């Protein structure tokens, strides 16, 4: 077969010579076609077509075969003339041989037929796409609606095409086949496993089997996918996985002390210094958290205290600190909360810090599974193990028995599903396992799809006022983030088109109408996703701001006085991105610097207005820009600054993440500022 294909290829190659022979035929007296006007036109067409493609294609470096197909057409047309000329030439040279076998009759058709056969062989040769069909069939047969394929192979688009609208695609292969955007893959896995309601499929292409899987396992601390099928295509190994619903490998980690722990420490500080840096790993509780987990300061950093990795920087001008952290696993799943309280003694030489960690998860799934692994000490010497229901009891802590094994088997794990709506505090998300009087505790694994924790207490009616860009995505992002934290929110989207930050006070009537029935308890005023000074040059901004500032301040007072029961969150816009050519905002440009300064002034002025006293206590500022967009907390603890924009009006995935986290943090925080309490002496 390979020999035949080689022959076919050889025959095809000869056809590129034939147009040259056609040129020879043209100069040959006998075979010369009439040099008609039509032929001249064709010649001009061919030359222009060829040179245009050669110049443009060469200049642009186009390596797309279809771009040059028209040249092929121009070459194919005179090719038979070349064959004809070749036949005539050979017959004149080998006249005796030619006449003896009557070759002049068949030569032309034989060459054309061989050429066509070669071309057909090439065209119909299998192009090894069967694996795509196999994967599509498998996913189609096993997938639930609203599923997503995280694809590194480049074939996901086809699979999605074959599956229709039931599947969404998250591609991580970028342009060049050899290049895999690793960070993009991590982000995709994290996002999809957390937020996708349906199945999450992971399609990997590896040169060496298991390399990507191992790398992902190394990064997340575990591999939350089950293997489904694999195909070998040439040098590549294609493997399909399905998300197994586990967003934290808490069983293997086993940190019982994290459930509830308190620890105090005392540090000697230098009163002459302004800052003191505290390593959270000094506390034994934090040392038990795996390195891939990260700690997030609720409501971001302040001047008094900031967090970087596991280092807390405290401003010593304050006398007391109280900081609240969330501890998230590598899939960004928050599972514990910690409160760090610090107090400086009057002399300023000693700093006493106490830390309390409560290991309750911040969310409870509607259904979740627990995989119980018997400690080896219990299993040893008991082979073959014959377990019965009486052997052990599985129950959530301090609750009645919810389930137990019913049949005899050797399995050491069991999936238990609790009904949705079970109060999470009762479940404690840990289990007591009794085995012949020996008791051990196991934590549970979570499965995606969940109802909110404390949904009775945390069901909010939120009015989301978007004054700059209408976007359902904002509401969607915020909802999913709140859901992650166990809050069910009814959100209404109000789009005040044409409004701007400075013209906000003009929309009192609209706001009154929306809040008149008393249903809404929280209003988010999104003052613009990006540059709200879009149409203003930097020298116009101070004047515009000064003019409108008083109106805005009176508007905030009005909000407080008229709707004291409603919480208002002002989402400050992000400062403009550098290097935006449309606004000539190069990083070195005065325009960009002045805009950044304008944004800082805006934030300070608003903070000042709100800090004037109690009147504005129901109004908060949600500042996304201070959240930073570095990837340190999410990926490998290596600091890498991400860009929150893909364009001046479009946020990147990093930007969206920060946007929704900042907003959620603000929403979750109590009215009193408990997370960054700073009281001067």
């Amino acid at each position, binding site marked *: 077969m390979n020999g035949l294909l080689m022959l076919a290829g050889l025959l095809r190659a000869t*056809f590129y010579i034939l147009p040259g022979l056609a040129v020879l035929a043209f100069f040959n007296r006998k075979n010369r*076609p*009439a040099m*008609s*006007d*039509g*032929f*001249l*036109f*064709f010649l*001009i*067409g061919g030359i*222009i*077509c060829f040179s*245009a*493609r050669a110049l443009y294609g060469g200049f642009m470096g186009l390596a797309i*075969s*279809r*771009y040059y*197909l*028209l040249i*092929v*057409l121009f070459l*194919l*047309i*005179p*090719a*038979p*003339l070349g*064959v*004809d000329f070749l036949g005539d030439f050979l017959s004149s040279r080998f006249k005796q041989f030619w006449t003896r076998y009557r070759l002049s009759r068949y030569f*032309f*058709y034989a060459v*054309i*037929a061989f*050429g*066509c056969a070669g*071309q*057909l062989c*090439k*065209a*119909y040769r299998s*192009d090894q*796409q069967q694996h*795509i*069909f196999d994967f599509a069939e498998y996913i189609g047969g096993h997938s639930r609606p609203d599923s997503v394929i995280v694809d590194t192979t480049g074939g996901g*688009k*086809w699979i999605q*095409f074959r599956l229709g609208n039931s599947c969404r695609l998250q591609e991580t292969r970028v342009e060049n086949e050899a290049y895999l955007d690793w960070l993009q893959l991590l982000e995709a896995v994290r996002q999809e496993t957390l937020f996708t309601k349906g199945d999450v499929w992971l399609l990997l292409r590896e040169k060496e089997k298991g390399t990507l899987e191992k790398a992902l396992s190394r990064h997340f601390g575990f591999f939350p996918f089950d293997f489904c099928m694999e195909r070998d295509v040439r040098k590549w190994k294609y493997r399909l996985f399905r998300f197994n619903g586990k967003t934290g490998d808490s069983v293997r980690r086993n940190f019982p002390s994290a459930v509830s722990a308190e620890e105090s420490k005392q540090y000697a500080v230098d009163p002459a210094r302004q800052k003191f840096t505290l390593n959270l790993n000094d506390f034994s509780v934090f040392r038990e958290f795996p390195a891939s987990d990260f700690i997030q300061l609720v409501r971001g950093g302040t001047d008094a205290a900031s967090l970087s990795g596991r280092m807390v920087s405290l401003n010593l001008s304050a006398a007391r600190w109280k900081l609240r952290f969330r501890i998230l696993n590598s899939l960004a799943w928050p599972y514990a909360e910690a409160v760090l309280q610090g107090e400086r003694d009057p002399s300023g030489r000693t700093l006493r810090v106490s830390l309390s960690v409560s290991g309750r998860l911040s969310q409870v799934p509607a259904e979740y599974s627990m995989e119980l692994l018997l400690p080896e000490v219990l299993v040893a010497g008991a082979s073959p193990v014959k377990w019965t229901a009486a052997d052990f009891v599985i129950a959530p802590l301090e609750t009645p028995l919810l389930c137990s094994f019913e049949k005899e088997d050797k399995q050491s794990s069991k999936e238990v599903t609790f009904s949705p709506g079970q109060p999470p505090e009762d479940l404690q998300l840990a289990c007591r396992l009794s085995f012949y009087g020996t008791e051990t505790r196991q934590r549970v694994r979570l499965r995606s799809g969940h109802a909110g924790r404390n949904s009775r207490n945390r069901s909010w009616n939120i009015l989301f006022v978007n004054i700059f860009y209408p976007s359902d995505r904002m509401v969607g992002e915020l909802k999913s983030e709140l859901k992650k934290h166990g809050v069910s929110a009814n959100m209404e989207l109000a789009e005040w088109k044409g409004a701007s930050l400075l013209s906000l006070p003009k929309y009192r009537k609209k706001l009154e109408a929306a809040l008149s029935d008393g249903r809404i308890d929280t209003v988010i005023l999104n003052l613009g996703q990006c540059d709200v000074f879009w149409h203003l040059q930097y020298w116009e901004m101070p004047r515009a701001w000064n003019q409108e500032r008083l109106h805005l301040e009176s508007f905030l007072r009005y909000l407080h006085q008229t709707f004291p029961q409603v919480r208002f969150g002002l989402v400050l816009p992000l400062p403009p991105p550098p290097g935006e050519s449309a606004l000539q905002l190069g990083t070195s440009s005065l325009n960009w610097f002045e805009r950044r300064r304008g944004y800082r002034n805006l934030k300070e002025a608003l903070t000042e207005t709100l800090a004037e006293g109690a009147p504005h206590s129901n109004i908060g500022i949600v500042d996304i820009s201070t959240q930073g967009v570095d990837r340190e907390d999410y990926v490998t603890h290596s600091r890498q600054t991400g860009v929150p924009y893909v364009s001046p009006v479009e946020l990147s995935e990093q930007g969206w993440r920060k946007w929704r986290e900042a907003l959620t943090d603000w929403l979750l925080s109590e009215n009193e500022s408990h997370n960054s309490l700073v009281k001067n002496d």
Partner: protein
Amino acid sequence: MKQLVQWLKNHWEMPAIFAGSFLLRFFYTFGRLPHRDALFYVEAAREKDGAAVYGPSDSLPPLFHYILVAANAFSLPVYETGLAVNLLAGSAVVVGVYLISLELFARKHLAWGAALLAATHPGLIEYSATAMRDAPYHCCFVFAVYFGIRLAKYQTVGSALMYGVLGALAILFRKEGVELLVILIVWLGVSVFVFPQENRLRRLSLVFISTVTFFLILISVCAGIYFADKSPWLFHLVGKL
């Protein structure tokens, strides 16, 4: 009917070539996946504001996009419609090659040879068996060249008109269709400087007719797009060129 039968008797080669090419391309589609770009076109056509995503708002010519959008509007399967357009256009390309060869060399076996080679060419088959813009563009280009050859040879008004129409359609499928206009300009120069004086006026007037038709079609389509979608595609194209 009689006329049709008579025409088929006289020109049986063309339906035969068309049918043969069509079958080759049709069977090629089985067990094969669409081209990646085809999926992109289909996706854009299905989207509500697909025209803003690509096509008229960018330098990609809009005709193929609007064919797919129309299919979507009439609840036809989008990809299959694009595929059908490509299969038909790709098969017609082979007929065009046959006609050009016959016009140039006036020998049937050479024309058959060219048609067979074009019918079996792997690249041409591949891009006719998916929902891409290439096959319709090739079809318009090849027939435009055919009518261009007739224009040069017989100097008929019909050929001039057809050249203009097909040239405009070609540029509405792929911007490389502008080469047909360049060919016309070069031909204008040849008509003025190369050919003897006696026929010059007729030649120039035919080129003029072709050019006017070309721009008339192009501008009217672009104006239609502009009023429908407010997307000045032609300006984008000129900007890109």
